[in-house]
């Protein structure tokens, strides 16, 4: 790689696939006949694959490649595949190709590598047959895994019944080969594996040997409780060692210690090592090529402020290469790195884009239905259970079906093209694909109709995978009958489908950001840097939000300086309009066209904007326990931070200071973890120790959740003799009392020490409480105004917790910062850029397309009762006075197509297009046993 920001040149070497991509149909006949079986890396080498194979079931493109184990490549023998391939797609003359590409920016999304436990022989991985890693186990659980979703032991191919998970393998270790940081994700993924194991085998006994349980992610605390409450699940806090393997049964004995019984040994059928996350393979070499610096752990070095910036301008990092992160954070930074590339390359936006052109749509609404049915094998997913050829033959007997065929993977590029081609060739005007859930692939199949010049709403999907083959794997004949029923119902509905038009709405290319904290300001600056005006609302008199109360981060960022600089940039930017002391009085409109009324400093303003970002932050819980508010010496961590920064001697000069964690959360009232308090406590403790090394500091905690790199600081605090005492409510909760000691008024903290097994009385000058982070006071109001929803814990609810963590269910509204969930500043910045990235995908377009499946009113049938209007919470229906009385009218832009109104309407006047009574009832009627009608179709 050479060049600089805005103008890089990258040379790539593409390995030969030995398959001509344009010719391969993905039929996999070559795989069947290939004589070479070798361990399949995708399935963790547990099962075998062939030298020629498809990498995995959802690979793109879904075609084969040939790897080094091929006999011809090794010894110039065999060539069976070449003679089998009917498409002449095998080409052994291919050689590595050099490609040179020129780009303006680079995103390194190199990911992570699972920790390899072989570096520590004491884990016995590779030595004992039934010690597996969590990655191995993940594949065992998977339907496309080595045993088709059966959890089996490789030693005897039997189902393990008693399984142990060992946490922190390769993480939180300062031994050779281990990583000192916490990998952040293993606690929850192990819990997921336990839940899935119990799904496979309800009586399975699952034991998790853990240190702290780190459920710091959104909704993870509830997930942990769900796992813990399953019957037969034990969480045991203990270090372990893997002692021996039973030579006959190959069972594995684990040694551990529990406070009451001391050291114990227990035999398990299988032991799963919860391996941590390591830097990607070849990370040093890659860092060298791109000229970026790495941190001490081998991940990308990132800025204190900008966690997506590498040490080299123009090169960004997203996902796991930032350090160990979970999926939502990976998605924040993916979208965020995109936004930063956008800032850099905005001047070139759209220059390489080409609009897709579809053929002119044919009007077939007057024709009799001519239905084509395509039945997908989904590899073996469907075909293994459902008799696909007989389903095809059956489809041909259905009324109006003129064509039917089977397909290996209907979603493969060549199969999709086949659907288009056959639609044209056979004059089809309705298409049914019998395959999987419409959730993922319906858009793709609709596209095949558009390509054929047919309205896309003439498409119907029959789900014979999730609804059939996957749930009836042991009843092949019944499953085939059911598949036929599903196809028959789909065909019946298809015959009633109507062509619908989607319509384009203009986009107002300005954004509104609600909340002027770090999240809101960062997001606003990124949006404005990409050429869009921003209105920024702040309810306080000045920008800055919660960060105004913070002084430093664990990594040493001067927060005050940073926030001031950020605020100045915002104030000075001519395209950012800041409204302080702002309150929203009304919010109307929809994606691309919002109208928000705001009162700010005596003015009443109407703002028109295309996108809305909610970044209203969060508040700190005001504790009611531990004498807070009654005794001045009891303060919160946030107040402690302020006092340390101000040099308050009552704090810095204290002889003894006690911190109590989890105050006001992880309880019945607030059943979540506030995520940041453990790190916050460590930060304050280290600051105090630096100022006053002799100070006694006690941290009373439940689980130390110093995930990621914070773990290093936790260790440092312990090294500096900060004392950590675990407490377990409700039986064992600390007590704080005011007392006199030697004439001096002090605070007395009593807590049960689980290590000593007795109560400790600690004399403290200051007690600092990790007060919970709670949703901002106006959260509910804002949610109501913008018609978005809240999670059970009262924070804003994203559209999808993993995949769409910066968006809302309501289109055109985005989310970032603590309004989403408590998070650290760098995480907030990640998400703020992420939200900006999503905003840009909307604002950079001239129009947005609205669905055709919305409601409409047949005015003649409307009796003006208003039942529809009451049912619609989007305000999409209104009653208008006409000469024939009141009539309902639908604003199709606001309609989300849920059809609640339709079910309420007494006369059937209002109807949800694409889900009309006719369409639904035809499907219900077709559920009855069908009389076979022989119809002269053709089959392939």
């Amino acid at each position, binding site marked *: 790689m050479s060049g600089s920001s805005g103008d890089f040149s990258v040379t790539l070497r593409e390995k030969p696939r030995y398959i001509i991509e344009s010719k391969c149909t993905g039929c996999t006949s070559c795989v069947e006949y290939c004589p070479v079986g070798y361990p399949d890396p995708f399935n963790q080498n547990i099962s075998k694959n062939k030298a020629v194979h498809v990498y995995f079931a959802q690979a793109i493109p879904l075609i084969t490649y040939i790897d080094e184990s091929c006999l011809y490549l090794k010894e110039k023998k065999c060539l069976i595949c070449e003679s089998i391939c009917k498409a002449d797609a095998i080409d052994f003359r291919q050689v590595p190709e050099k490609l040179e590409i020129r780009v303006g920016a680079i995103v390194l999304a190199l990911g992570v590598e699972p920790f390899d436990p072989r570096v520590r022989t004491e884990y016995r991985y590779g030595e004992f047959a039934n010690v597996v890693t969590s990655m191995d186990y993940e594949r065992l659980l998977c339907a496309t895994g080595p045993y088709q979703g059966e959890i089996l032991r490789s030693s005897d191919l039997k189902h393990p019944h008693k399984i142990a998970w060992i946490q922190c393998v390769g993480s939180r270790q300062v031994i050779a080969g281990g990583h000192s940081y916490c990998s952040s994700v293993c606690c929850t993924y192990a819990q997921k594996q336990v839940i899935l194991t119990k799904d496979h085998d309800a009586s399975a006994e699952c034991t998790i040997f853990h240190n702290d349980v780190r459920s710091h992610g959104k909704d993870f605390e509830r997930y942990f409780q769900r796992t813990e409450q399953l019957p037969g699940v034990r969480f045991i806090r203990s270090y372990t060692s893997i002692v021996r393997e039973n030579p006959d049964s190959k069972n594995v004995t684990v040694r551990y210690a529990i406070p009451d019984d001391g050291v114990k040994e227990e035999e398990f059928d299988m032991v799963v090592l919860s391996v941590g996350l390591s830097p990607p393979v070849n990370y040093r070499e890659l860092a060298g090529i791109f000229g970026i610096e790495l941190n001490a752990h081998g991940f990308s070095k990132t800025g204190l402020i900008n966690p997506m910036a590498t040490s080299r301008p123009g090169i960004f990092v997203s996902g796991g290469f930032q350090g160990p992160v979970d999926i939502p954070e990976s998605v924040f930074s993916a979208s965020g790195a995109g936004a930063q590339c956008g800032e850099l390359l905005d001047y070139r936006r759209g220059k390489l884009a080409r609009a897709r052109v579809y053929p002119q749509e044919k009007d077939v609404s007057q024709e009799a239905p001519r239905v084509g049915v395509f039945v997908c094998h989904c590899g073996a997913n469907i075909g293994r259970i459902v008799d696909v050829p007989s389903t095809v033959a059956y489809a041909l007997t259905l009324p109006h079906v003129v064509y039917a065929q089977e397909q290996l993977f209907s979603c493969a590029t060549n199969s999709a093209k086949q659907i288009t081609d056959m639609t044209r060739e056979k004059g089809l005007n309705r298409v049914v694909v019998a395959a999987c859930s419409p959730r993922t692939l319906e858009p793709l199949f609709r596209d095949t109709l558009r390509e054929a010049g047919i309205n896309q709403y003439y498409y119907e999907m029959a789900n014979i995978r999730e609804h059939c083959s996957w749930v009836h794997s042991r009843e092949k004949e019944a499953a085939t009958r059911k598949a036929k029923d599903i196809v028959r119902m789909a065909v019946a509905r298809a015959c009633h489908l109507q062509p619908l038009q989607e319509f384009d709405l203009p986009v107002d290319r300005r954004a509104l950001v609600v909340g002027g904290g770090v999240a809101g300001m960062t997001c606003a600056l990124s949006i404005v840097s990409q050429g869009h005006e921003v209105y920024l609302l702040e309810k306080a008199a000045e920008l800055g939000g919660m960060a105004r109360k913070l002084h430093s981060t664990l990594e040493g960022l001067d927060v005050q300086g940073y926030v001031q600089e950020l605020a100045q940039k915002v104030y000075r930017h001519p395209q950012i309009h800041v409204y302080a002391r702002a309150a929203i009085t009304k919010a109307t409109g929809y994606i691309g066209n919002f109208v928000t009324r705001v009162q700010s400093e005596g003015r009443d303003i109407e703002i028109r904007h295309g996108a809305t970002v909610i970044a209203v932050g969060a508040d700190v819980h005001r504790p009611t326990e531990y004498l807070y508010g009654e005794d001045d010496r009891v303060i919160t961590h946030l107040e402690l931070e302020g006092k340390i920064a101000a040099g308050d001697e009552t704090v810095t000069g204290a002889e003894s200071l006690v911190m109590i964690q989890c105050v006001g959360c992880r309880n019945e009232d607030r059943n979540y973890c506030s995520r940041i308090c453990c790190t916050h406590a460590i930060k304050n403790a280290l600051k105090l120790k630096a100022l006053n090394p002799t100070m006694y500091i006690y941290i009373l905690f439940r689980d130390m959740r110093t995930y990621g790199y914070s773990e290093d600081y936790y260790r440092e605090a312990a090294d500096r003799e900060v004392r950590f005492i675990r407490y377990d409510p409700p039986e064992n909760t600390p007590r704080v009392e005011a007392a006199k000691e030697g004439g001096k008024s002090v605070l007395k903290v009593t807590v049960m020490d689980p290590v000593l097994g007795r109560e400790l009385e600690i004399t403290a000058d200051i007690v600092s409480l990790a007060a919970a982070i709670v949703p901002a006071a106006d959260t509910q109001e804002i949610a109501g105004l913008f018609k978005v*929803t809240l999670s059970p814990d009262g924070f804003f609810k994203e559209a999808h917790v993993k995949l769409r963590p910066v968006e809302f269910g309501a289109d055109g509204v985005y989310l970032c910062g603590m309004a989403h969930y408590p998070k650290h500043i760098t995480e907030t910045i990640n998400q703020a850029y992420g939200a900006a990235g999503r905003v840009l995908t909307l604002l950079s377009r001239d129009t947005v397309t609205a669905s055709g499946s919305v409601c409409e009113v047949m005015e*003649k049938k409307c*009796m003006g009762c208003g*039942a529809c209007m009451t049912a619609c*919470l989007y305000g999409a229906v209104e009653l208008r006075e006409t000469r024939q009385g009141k009539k309902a009218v639908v604003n199709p832009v606001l309609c989300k197509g849920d059809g*609640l109104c339709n079910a309420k309407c007494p006369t059937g006047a209002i109807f949800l297009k694409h889900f009309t009574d006719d369409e639904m009832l035809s499907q*219900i009627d077709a559920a009855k046993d069908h009389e076979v009608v022989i119809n002269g179709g053709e089959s392939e």
Partner: protein
Amino acid sequence: MCSGRVDLEFVLRAFSNGIDGVFIGGCRLNECNYVTHGNYHALNMTLLCRKIMERLGLDPARLRIEFMSGSEGNVFVEVVDDFIRQIKGLGSLGSESGVNSNTLKSRLVEVRKLIPYIKVMKNEKLATRLTDPNAYTDFYTREEIDELLDKVVSYYIDPEKCQACMICQRRCPAEAIDGGKNRIHFINQDKCIKCGACVEACPPRFGAATKISDRPVPPPVSEKERMLSRNTKEK
């Protein structure tokens, strides 16, 4: 489409078709991805439908609604297996009350015709969304449904009073009013959905359209008698 789109007609149509059980799957309550919480509407409709089923001689257990998320395949399997066991236990449709299948069929046809009427009469209750699922348990009572369906009203246009002005005819959402200019209107009882729009539309000075609840609807008058002679009026 949301589970709240499931119409009373969908369910009753299925039973009419001889289907032994109907299962409605909705998202988890209080976890709506949108603002609508349409699953509560589905629950509301289900409870109403169950009471109607009782009256028809169907075990209400034949209609089941359950709430679960897309990731709870295991819950779905459990629930469906259980439902199928239950339906098999109940036997063929109507066997639970000994109603023969033809009687049951005609009862179903009859009640399906009344769906618009039920929706009009229960308009407010159907629109209610309680926040606590438990509060729905006795939301609809058997007595209430009997009262509703025992005292079904009919609408009738008195040929003596009708001035053939076509106002009600234009208002009727079901196109159930036959007539024309100078041709006295009558209501086709097969098409009438009993919404009462005609009574509201009929000018009070005529008062021709009325609600009848205590006697059968008189038959329509002959075609000859229907011709309205304006002369008498102009005298």
